[in-house]
Structures are given as C-alpha cells and as structure tokens.
C-alpha cells in the first residue's frame, strides 16, 4: 500500500508508485501468495496498492513488504547514475539525462514501505528475532527506522531519501570506479 501527501506529487512521480506496487506483486508471485487486487496507480489515497494473502513464512512476508524498498532504492541509483554525471558534475544539457533523473528520483521517493506493509513484519519479527532468525534481527531496526521515516513523510522525508540516494549513490559508485 502506498500513501503520498498529495495527488499532484503522486501524479508527478507516478513511475515510483507503479514500480513500488510492481515490486510487491513480483514478490507475491515469487512466494506464490494469493493476490486479491492490484492498483498500480490512481489519484487517491493510497495512490497504489496490492491486496495479498498474509503469509506465515517470515521470509516471504519480509520480501513482500520490504522488497519494493530495496528494488526502488536500487533502481533509483541505477537511473540516477545514468544521469548524474551530465547533470551534476559535467553540466552538460542532455534531455535524456534529465528524464532519467526525474525517473530515478520518482522511484527513490516511493521506496518507503507503508506503515501497513511494516505492521505485519512488526508483529512477527520480535518473536523470531528472539529465536535468532537473522532476517528478523535485521528487520527490526530497519522496520523501526522505516516506521519513523513514514511518519516523517509529512516533512518530505520520502523526497529527501530519493535525493539522498539519487545523489550519494552515483557519487559513491563513480568515486569507487575512479579508484
């Protein structure tokens, strides 16, 4: 599920919503969960959703909930990297680069899983973490951070995350390549 603080912002960054929901659907299909309904984009709240069967398998639940976060982050870095050099460092006017930067930031901005996505993990993770499940141990602080980030959307934390990933990701990649 997804929440965007305004229909205008949702419309401007619609590729991110679509990719996020496609990510949910991908992991539902991967873990063979039943999908009851899918909306890739709409002018409403939430802007997109995937209604799916809840799984007792924590791994499946983790990837269905968190998969879009990782996928959107990765795609944000990929698309922004294709555009980062001409726009930020080389100051070359290239319309394709601007298109990719918009695409990358839109995708990055919609990386956060919704509170509802996280709530299922939040219920399952503590007990499994106590039993030493590494994924649950990893999930707890990450989900905690993402819950906070979700509330911080009112102050554009989602946009901030997109920009951070879209700028720092390519810088890290290119600096590493330069070495």
């Amino acid at each position: 599920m997804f929440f965007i603080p305004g229909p205008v912002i949702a419309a401007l960054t619609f590729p991110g919503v679509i990719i996020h929901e496609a990510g949910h659907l991908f992991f539902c299909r991967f873990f063979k969960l039943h999908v009851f309904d899918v909306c890739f984009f709409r002018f409403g709240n939430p802007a997109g959703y995937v209604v799916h069967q809840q799984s007792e398998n924590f791994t499946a639940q983790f990837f269905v909930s968190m998969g879009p976060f990782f996928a959107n982050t990765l795609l944000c870095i990929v698309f922004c990297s294709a555009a980062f050099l001409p726009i930020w460092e080389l100051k070359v006017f290239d319309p394709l680069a601007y298109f990719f930067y918009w695409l990358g930031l839109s995708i990055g901005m919609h990386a956060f899983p919704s509170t509802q996505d996280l709530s299922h993990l939040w219920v399952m993770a503590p007990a499994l973490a106590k039993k030493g499940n590494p994924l649950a141990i990893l999930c707890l602080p990450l989900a905690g951070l993402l819950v906070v980030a979700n509330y911080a959307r009112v102050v554009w934390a989602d946009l901030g995350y997109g920009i951070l990933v879209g700028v720092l990701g390519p810088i890290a990649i290119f600096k590493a390549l330069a070495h």
Partner: protein
Amino acid sequence: MPLINRSICARCNTFIASDASAVQIGSARFCSTCAPLIKDWDYPVWLKIGLASLLLLLAVALVHGRKYFHAGRALYIGERLVDEGKFANALPYLKETLTIAPGSDKASLLAAKSALMIGDVASADKALHDHDGGHYEDGQSAQFLEVNSLWDHANEAFKKADQAGKLAQQDGKSAQAAKLMHDAASLYPQLPGFAFAAESLDGGAAFERRDFDSFLAVSENQWKEQPASETAAQLASALACKYAVTGTIDFRKRAEEMMDKARQLAQGDSEALKSIDEYVPRIQYRLSSRKIITKQEYDYLFRSGKSSAK
C-alpha cells in the same frame, strides 16, 4: 474486499451459491473467473511493455552516456590526484574531461588549479576562459576563491616579470630588474622560470657593480641548473670578466669553450643564434682587450644599432 459471504465471490461479488466450480481459498470463496487470477495474478501487458521500454531506454542511455562516464571517470581521477598534490598527473585527466564537458565548473577549476600549481599559465588561462567566458555558478565557493587567488598572483607576477624584463634591457638597471623578478618569483613560486630569471638578473646586477666573483658564481649555477646556449654564453661572459681582471689564462680557455658550447646549443634555434651573434663579439672583445665595458659602451664604440643581453 467485500465482506465475506460464502454465497458470493469474495472478489467480484458474483453469486456463486453452490456452484461446483467455485474455489475456496482460505476462508473465502471465489468464482471460477477470479480464482485463477488470485492464484496467479499476471503482470498487465502495459506494465510489461513499459518496463521493457524503460530497460531499453536505460541501455540506450548507457551507450549514449559512455562519453559522460569516460569524462566523469577522468574527472574523479583528476580530483583524487589534485587532492594528493599530483598536479602534473591530474592535468591531462582534467583536460580530457573539459573536451567533453567544457561547462563543468568543477573540471574547469580543478584543471586551472592544477595548471597554475605547475606553472602552466597557458593551460590555466584556457581552462578558465573556455568555461562560459570565465563565468562560474558559485563565485564564493572555496575552490573558486582559491583558483582566483592563484590566478591573481600569477598575473601580478607576470606584470612584475614583464617590467623586470624591460629594465634589464637598460644599462645600470639590473639590480632593480632583479628585485622585481624576485618579487615575481615569490608571488608565483609555482613557476620555476621566475626564480631562475631572478638569479640570472642577480648575475647582471653583480656585473654592474663589478662583483665578478658573484657574477661567475651565479653564472656557473645557472649553467649547472639549465645547460642552454643562453646560460653557456652568460658563463662565458663571467669567465671573460675574470680573465680581464686577473689575466689567468684558465679563465680565458674556459670562456672560449663556453662560447663554443653556446654556439653548438643554439644550432637550429634562430632566436638563440641571433642572441649569440650579438653576445659573442662583446665577449671576444673582453678577452682580447681585457677591458670590461657595458653593452651600451660597446655599441657606442663598435656598432651603430642596438641589441640585447649583458
């Protein structure tokens, strides 16, 4: 989702009652149309086409952006080398970036800095002025201010060096010229030529105050540092002075050797040959007459025209 009612499909609300084809999934029942969809919800065609187009576009962008990756890589390598103080190594990388991205503030400033730090003012001038006519987005950035300060120092140094050069042409002004050239060298120490020229003018000043030991010491050092026709001729001049004053034949021999070396080294360089042709007769006069006169005096006695050098 609609409220679960076992007689209707939980997804589409179709009445299914005791329809045998209805499927039970969990606690809900679904009609024969919805059940396969729920079990295997396919990606819509538009999404598949959209994602495929996006990947294709990304591939196009990566191919199209190869030159940017190349320029960017060169920029980051150049930046790293500048941070490590390896300015001469950094400059070729930064020049490479500027051929693809002349508008890059970062590349232009780093290239200008590298060039200025190794005394390559022509490259610095090109890097700065080919960049949007010398206009930068952030005129208050630390990088811009640093390059600006280096550039101002270099320009001021060149002005002083130019003045020194003009004074050096006049008899009796070598000390003044040397002082100006030393100022230039301290303003822009990155250009070793200024310090070298200042030392050469020190030699000229020593000649003027008839301190031939200092003149010889400077000339020997100059020859050692930079063996060229000019330094060979200057050393020949200093040795001729010492011969004129002491009469020691060894100075004369060495002066003649240095004159030969100056001629050899000037071969193929018309400017250097012209300078040698002007200089050598004066040294020969000094050796034959054991009289030390200035260029102006020599010109007055033997030439109607004028030329350069001490």
